């Protein structure tokens, strides 16, 4: 039996399988399919200062081996999380991580302070990479200096470890990762979705109401994998790797590229038990390869490892 527990800096997880923000609701949405306590961590739906209705529809379009979404951060807002929603986290053994999004740096700081003090919240994930909102979001994640500043202020305000979710829509992801690590982040989540477009040829119009959306799913896996490789190669920092993970082999590839843990996103929509299935398959891989501790796999595909 392999020891599957992982540590991202001071954040300890029971196992390396987490579920990505925006794909798992607030933690209970998959309860009829499996016990959420099986997971290493749950990244809850992105929280903003005020509740958000989200974007107009259509919000989703399927593409070859991928999915473009433009949900637009539909969420309950920080106040409802503080006042009542947190009760749903009770009894879930997985680390509950709050994904937060601000329109301004001040909003990020306020969210970090408030969300980190919500009962049962084990970590924060700063979403400086959402492609589907007008203000803030991805713009912060493209500028290393701004990303560092936001991280620094949120780390100072937060009562729990701070992870930063990065956008792949940049020329050099390493530069932004280095900036947020310098700002005091516990680790980085790589990657959010790729800005994408689908057009309906018959209607001669974009498919999505918001025109652009974020591409996820197996289509982006090789690019996400490359980015995890680059960041690990340059920084050796804790990484939660994600992008099109559908099965245990995909997850192991991310670990080998440099991730300490992985996040399952789009696969949850296709197979609601994808995350526990992937955990089991990682265990089987480790047994087959005589892995004693899962951390042996992190970065193991890099030369000299």
């Amino acid at each position: 039996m392999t020891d599957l527990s992982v540590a991202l800096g001071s954040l300890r997880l029971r196992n390396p399988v987490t579920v990505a923000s925006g794909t798992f609701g607030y933690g209970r949405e998959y309860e009829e399919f499996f016990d959420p306590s099986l997971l290493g961590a749950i990244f809850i739906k992105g929280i903003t200062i005020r509740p958000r209705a989200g974007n107009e529809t259509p919000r989703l379009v399927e593409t070859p081996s991928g999915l473009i979404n433009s949900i637009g951060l539909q969420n309950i807002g920080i106040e409802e999380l503080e006042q009542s929603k947190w009760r749903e986290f009770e009894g879930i053994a997985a680390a509950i991580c709050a994904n937060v999004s601000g329109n301004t740096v001040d909003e990020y700081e306020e969210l970090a302070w408030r969300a980190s003090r919500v009962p049962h919240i084990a970590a924060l994930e700063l979403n400086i990479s959402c492609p589907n909102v007008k203000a803030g979001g991805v713009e912060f994640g493209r500028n290393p200096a701004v990303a560092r500043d936001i991280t620094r202020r949120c780390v100072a305000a937060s009562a729990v470890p701070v992870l930063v979710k990065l956008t792949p829509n940049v020329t050099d992801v390493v530069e932004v990762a280095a900036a947020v690590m310098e700002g005091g982040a516990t680790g980085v989540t790589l990657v959010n979705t790729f800005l994408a477009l689908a057009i309906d040829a018959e209607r001669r119009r974009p498919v999505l109401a918001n025109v652009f959306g974020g591409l996820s799913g197996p289509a982006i896996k090789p690019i996400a994998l490359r980015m995890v490789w680059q960041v690990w190669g340059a920084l050796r920092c804790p990484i939660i790797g994600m992008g099109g993970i559908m099965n245990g082999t995909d997850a192991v590839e991310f670990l080998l590229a440099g991730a300490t843990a992985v996040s399952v996103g789009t696969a949850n929509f296709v197979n609601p038990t994808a995350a526990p299935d992937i955990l089991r398959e990682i265990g089987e891989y480790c047994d087959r390869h005589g892995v004693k501790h899962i951390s042996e796999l992190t970065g193991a595909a890099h030369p000299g490892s």
Partner: protein
Amino acid sequence: MPAPVTAANGSEAQRDKLREDPPEKTCLFVRVPNFSYACQAIVVDRVPALLMDLTHVASGDDRALKHQVAATLESVRVLDRETYVHTYLAPAIAADAQPGQFLHIRVSHLTAPLLRRPISILWSDGHERVQVLFKVVRTGTALLAAKREGETVDLLGPLGTPFPYDFARDAVMVAGGYGIAPVYFLGKANRSDHNRRTLIYGARSADQLYLRDELKEAFDEIIYTTEDGSLARKGRVTGPLRDLLAARENLALYACGPTPMLAAVADEAARVAAPPPCYVSMENQMGCGFGACLGCVVRTHEGFKTTCKQGPVFDAREIVFDTAAR
């Protein structure tokens, strides 16, 4: 006899009234789970307390059971070049399936097409078999249509909200095109002598009015419309619907079809003096199918709601149709 309060339609106010002023006799309509959809009518003495309990049991999330199963495709019936009926052996799903709910079907274990396909349940025998009617639209449904008898198919279901059903009112069920599936299920599952079930079924032409033989046993009365006049009344479902609404009283409307049709049905229902209850089953592009991705929302007067979990069946008055029909 006062109008019965059914598990599905009983409002808090109605229940309060029953508590205060219990009737001497109460007629309970009980659907026997895992057995059949035939409703048993049981007349009992003064049971408001029991009625309260049943109302609780049958409401909302308490019965939201979902199963992911590898079901055997037992039989394939080809209705025309692009229209199929699949019968799956899926006891767990069949036992819980109710009219208005859908199956989310994974058509391939490869990554393209990636997402499942939501398909309305046409019929469940209540214990073993569940059927769907579908049209081949693009790749996903074409792959489903290519499956052979004996193959296993990955089904998720039953998903979504079922139609509420009111035995105290005569049912007018309106279907457009492939929207016949849940409407057929609703009509057939609620066969009884307690109310009249009228179907208004419209399509572009006669050959697109499916399952006409089967429909006869599910409804007391059927009115067909075709846009090209190739069968029965030429035009759309709204014509006969308007006539019915003008001529009869104490109706409840249940509809499934293209969104513009649902909007028209809701309009017709709203324009009569005493608007009947009107339930519509909305169609939408879906992601997960169980409320997690928020991709399939529809605009309601209370904000966006998910078609897959808070729907697909909504009270028509909830829906903001001008946006939904875009």
